[in-house]
């Protein structure tokens, strides 16, 4: 029993590794992951003080860089290095996850399988957990924010765990999971 668990863990770790390395397999993929990472970071940081962001952007959209620099400092002042590191980690993982999800979608469309349903829940669940704190704030539930343990840090850790789980589950997007699309795509993994 323990042996099986260990083997499953090792497989998951290998899948996670190949999922994380996937953006390295193409210039466009790497660029895409970079853009998605930056975009996620900007979104996450701006959503920490939605009211401030709204006021700033309503007046002048080019103030977005000012907003990001001010709010990065504010995130550091309110939640410290841990909070800021979580946001950065979150952005990086989302960059990879988005790139891999796009690859999965393209592959599934080509192989004709009904795959979207299998991918989106992971991305959505992780996305919700990450910006959940910001969304609550944007909706005016500042009280709910305050009630969250550790000012939403737990929520972010949960989001990161979900993202890692999604990446490990999907593995390298160029390989087929068992039972999807027949054998057409199997064995493309470069190892």
């Amino acid at each position, binding site marked *: 029993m323990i042996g099986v668990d260990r083997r499953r863990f090792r497989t998951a770790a290998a899948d996670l590794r190949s999922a994380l390395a996937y953006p390295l*397999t193409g210039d466009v993929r790497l660029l895409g992951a970079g853009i998605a990472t930056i975009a996620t970071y900007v979104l996450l940081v701006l959503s920490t003080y939605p009211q401030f962001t709204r006021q700033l952007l309503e007046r002048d959209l080019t103030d977005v860089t000012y907003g990001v620099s001010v709010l*990065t400092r504010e995130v550091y002042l309110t939640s410290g290095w841990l909070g800021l590191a979580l946001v950065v980690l979150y952005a990086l993982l989302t960059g990879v996850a988005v790139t891999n999800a796009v690859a999965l979608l393209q592959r599934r469309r080509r192989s004709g399988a009904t795959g979207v349903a299998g991918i989106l829940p992971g991305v959505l669940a992780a996305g919700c957990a990450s910006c959940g704190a910001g969304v609550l704030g944007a909706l005016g539930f500042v009280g709910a924010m305050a009630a969250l343990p550790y000012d939403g840090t737990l929520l972010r850790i949960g989001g990161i765990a979900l993202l890692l789980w999604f990446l490990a589950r999907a593995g390298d997007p160029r390989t087929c999971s068992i039972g999807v699309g027949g054998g057409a795509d199997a064995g493309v993994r470069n190892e």
Partner: protein
Amino acid sequence: MDEEDTITNRRAILAGGATLGFGAGVAYLATRSPSSDSSYEPAAFHEGTGASGLGIELSGRPIVGDPDAPVDLYYWTDYLCPFCARFEANTLATIGRNYVDAGTVRIPFLLYPNIGDYSTSAAVWDRCVWEQVGEDDPAAYWNWHGSVFDAQRSSGENWADDERFGAITEGVEGVSRSAVQSCRASRRDAIRDRLDADVAAAQSAGIRGTPGFVVYNRETDQAGRLVGAHPYENFETAIDRVLAT
């Protein structure tokens, strides 16, 4: 496999470098010491009398700048508001040097306690300090005000309480802690009425958060509103706009 589908060293190095650069950039933004300009002290202070042309009650409120300045920049603040601290550290001094000391703008300091449990108490401390020193030594009020925001910036959450404000007050030259304490005990209700008037004025100007600003040309009656810790250029634009009308 062709290069397009393999992990090349070049891409690995690029990705590693970009990740490090990203992390370093965020760390830089996080630790960049704010360009705090605490050396600035306005050339003139006065106490407001009566309502302004915009209908905002200024009696007993501290005003920075020349009484005859053509533009009012009403500033609603809360000592517990992090963006007010940011405005004070980064922008207020530049507005002061360029517009207040030049006699173009005066800034009535109004209070909009809204952030935390201690916001209203902090506002009462503020008005009691002004009542004590406003007439003879208004610079002491300015120093007290700056010290409170410095304390906010260098503290974590839940920094504001009676003990902390007492210590800050004691540390500012020219302000007597005991005189301010007796004002807090005896004048609390009158001051709270005045605070309610400040908040009502902010709300009727459409301001729902701090820092909040209304720019008002006292001669032409033109007004504009700004909410949030805007960069200095936005204040410049807003002031120049009401001046041009």
